[in-house]
């Protein structure tokens, strides 16, 4: 079998540490297949006049059963938290199994 080209659109991997829960990908996805839950936390830094509010990602789900691999989410992410990986072999016994959360999306790993 021939090699899968490295730029193949196999899956979209998430770098959760880079994600700011800005929701741009969720809003731009034409298929509505990304769901994000997040909450805000106050961070006090020494020397800062008042605490900063940061968004903390609680869950990030892509539903591969809906995704059409258009790549719009990857394009719009301002923080490069999403990227293509060539891995394409992730079947599931039911539709629920095609909904991948943070852990699974991070497993796709860096390209």
């Amino acid at each position, binding site marked *: 079998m021939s090699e899968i080209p490295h730029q193949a659109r196999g899956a979209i991997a998430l770098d959760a540490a880079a994600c700011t829960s800005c929701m741009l990908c*969720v809003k731009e996805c034409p298929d*509505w297949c990304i*769901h*994000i*839950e997040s909450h805000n936390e106050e961070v006090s830094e020494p020397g800062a006049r008042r605490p900063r509010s940061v968004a903390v990602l609680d869950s990030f789900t892509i539903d591969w059963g809906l995704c059409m691999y258009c790549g719009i989410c990857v394009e719009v992410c301002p923080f490069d938290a999403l990227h293509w990986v060539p891995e394409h072999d992730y079947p599931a016994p039911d539709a629920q199994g095609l909904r991948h959360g943070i852990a699974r999306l991070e497993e796709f790993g860096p390209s």
Partner: protein
Amino acid sequence: MSGVTGPPGPLWEPWADAVAQRVAAGFDRLDLLTAVDRPASGEIEIVIHLVRRPEAGGLEDVWGHTLLDRAAPMLESVTGLLPAAAWHEREIHEMFGVQVSGHPDLRPLLLLDVASPPPLRKDTPLVARVDTPWPGARR
């Protein structure tokens, strides 16, 4: 060319004759046959892409299109010339509500009920989309 309509050049009319002419010139490989709904102009556009093999006169391709009346779209089948067009025409019939005259078998490919509004017409509501809350509205 306004840019919103399909391939450049004059419309292929009458449709089946125009296709036959290209097939006779060696463009006998069907690459694409599909429709585009254009509600603003009240038309359904039919688009075809034909390829000529190198041994049939030199590798070359040709795009053709025609416009149908959206209110009562009627297309002549080209399956007699290009058997591979059969499923594409079935799809155009099923998804865009185009009548295809002279087609041997217009059974729907996917829908259980072709009487429902054609799903790929731009004004057909997608029920699942209407029922689902937009995930982007969360915040």
